[in-house]
């Protein structure tokens, strides 16, 4: 019983990171109605960002996160200008494909540079032992950082003029435009913000698990699950959805083989999508 509880707590810690990854996806969906299929590739870039930058910044993975966030923001602006800007107002097929095209380019370059070998960020933190179960320092710190970033985002969206402008554009772009909000720039900003969040989440995941260039794909799928659980376009819901997914993962892990976890996840994903297309937490504070 204690083992199950420990596994659930560890799942919650992981879930916070899943949630942060999904916040980036859901922010972009909420503001511009685009499912960002570069998400997984960007998460992978975050992982490799930590791998490359950590030795330069004194070996600490956490010191690289601010750098990654800034880099991710700029990269998001580039993606927006190159592919998304022209398809924002077109059918969703176009925006899905435009972002998928960028995804192919990133994965292609990444595969050429790093092949598909497994990489690792070697470092260790003191863990916390309770009843014979160890919660690693990396898991706890990652969850803490994820929650802090999410709270900071919430504050930004709630209490700054820029955040208010983003929420205005999300709820009605034309009306926002009429109120003098430059909606084009707000869209670019939101997209870049979403990408920056994804890249930071990727960096955090790199401190937890080994990764390859293609690892981002499975976290993208997890982000879809989380986003759907929390309601597409709802950042606060995404964090809750992430915690729920992590909790479920942790809860079932002691009872079944690890390979069955994705089966449960995806079946749940499809069922929730069918039964609750607006998510389990439809009305979020951060909208």
């Amino acid at each position, binding site marked *: 019983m204690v083992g199950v509880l420990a596994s659930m707590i560890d799942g919650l810690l992981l879930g916070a990171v899943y949630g942060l990854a999904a916040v980036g996806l859901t922010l972009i969906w909420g503001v511009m109605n685009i499912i960002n299929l570069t998400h997984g590739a960007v998460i992978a870039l975050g992982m490799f960002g930590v791998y490359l930058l950590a030795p330069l910044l004194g070996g600490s993975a956490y010191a690289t996160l601010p750098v990654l966030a800034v880099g991710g923001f700029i990269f998001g602006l580039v993606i927006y200008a190159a592919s998304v800007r022209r398809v924002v107002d077109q059918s969703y097929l176009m925006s899905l494909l435009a972002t998928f095209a960028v995804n192919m*380019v990133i994965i292609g*370059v990444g595969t050429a540079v790093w092949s598909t070998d497994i990489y690792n960020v070697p470092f260790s933190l003191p863990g916390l032992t309770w009843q014979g179960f160890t919660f690693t320092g990396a898991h706890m710190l990652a969850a803490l950082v994820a929650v802090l970033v999410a709270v900071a985002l919430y504050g930004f969206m709630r209490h700054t003029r820029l955040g208010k402008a983003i929420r205005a554009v999300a709820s009605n772009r034309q009306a926002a435009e009429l109120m003098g909000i430059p909606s084009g720039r707000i869209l670019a900003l939101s997209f870049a913000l979403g990408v920056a969040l994804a890249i930071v989440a990727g960096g955090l995941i790199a401190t937890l698990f080994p990764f390859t260039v293609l690892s981002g794909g499975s976290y993208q799928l997890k982000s879809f699950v989380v986003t759907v659980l929390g309601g597409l376009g709802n950042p606060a819901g995404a964090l809750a959805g992430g915690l729920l997914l992590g909790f479920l993962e942790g809860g079932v892990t002691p009872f079944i083989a690890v390979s069955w976890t*994705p089966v449960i996840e995806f079946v749940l994903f499809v069922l929730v999508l069918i039964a609750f297309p607006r998510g389990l937490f439809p009305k979020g504070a951060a909208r």
Partner: protein
Amino acid sequence: MIDGTPSAVLDRRRFGHPMVWLILVVLAIFAGLPAVTGDVALRETLFLGAVAIILASSLNLMIGYTGYVNFGNIVFFGLGGYFGVWLATAQGWPILGAMVAAAIIVGAISLVFGYGILRLRGAYFALATIGINEAVRAFVSNLDVWGGSTGMYLSTTVYQSLGGPRQALWVVYYAVIVLMGAALLLSWLIRRSKFGLGLFAIREDEDAAAVLGVYPALYKSIIYSVSGLIPAMTGALFFFKNGVIQPDQAFDLTWSTEVIVMLMLGGQGSVVGAALGAFLYDQLRSTLLTSSLFSQFHLVIAGVLLLLIILFVPGGLMGWITDRWPKTRGTLE
């Protein structure tokens, strides 16, 4: 679809529609060239091209005709492969019988999937198709009867009934060519039918279509299943020929999405466009993969190509051709 002048109608009555001739000529080339030259490498190239054409034509029924973006159409190909290979090896069925049985089983499964996800629209539907594919892949990876994550291997003895492995490759090749002909003919017939018009109406405005007497739920359910039948049969043949079937290869989301690239390249909604885009993309892909300079960058080049099409030629090749020469509109459908 719209015949311009009375004489055109008359001509078509006497000689048949040019599309029928086009399909027959393509089939003759695919069937004849490798047989006449005896060139096995050419046969393999055309085999992959034909598989691409089948997948793209079938997906075109969903994306191009009905306006529903299915990212995971490969799930039918993979399931067909699994059922076909399993029946042919573990149950000792002849491959063509296994192929038909696989199509029937997959057809039944697709009705269940369709019943669930076809009530979703737009991006929600697209996400659900990804979810279905991944759920099936994860499930099959755990299915010990089908070899779990390592998959199933065929022993060479299963090819004996077709006259040995070498002969079997030819048999499978011609069977795939027949399926390609069926896929092209089916897309064209649906496009010309009242049923096809109903699908187009759903694509333009589902609610308006319902008001005008189209049954969207029924139409979508039928086309979703139909778009899986020929890929299921092709999957059975493909993996029978391949000699091994594994979950990651059978339910490959990247491949599934590359089929969408093919559609965009050729022009979605058009029978000729889907086939042309599939063939050209497949050629490009294999050229890039085999070249020493670009083999690392085939995804990059495909991605840039896709982006350029979306941003600058959203109608694809056929859109460009019919814009340029409007008279081709009635002939090349």
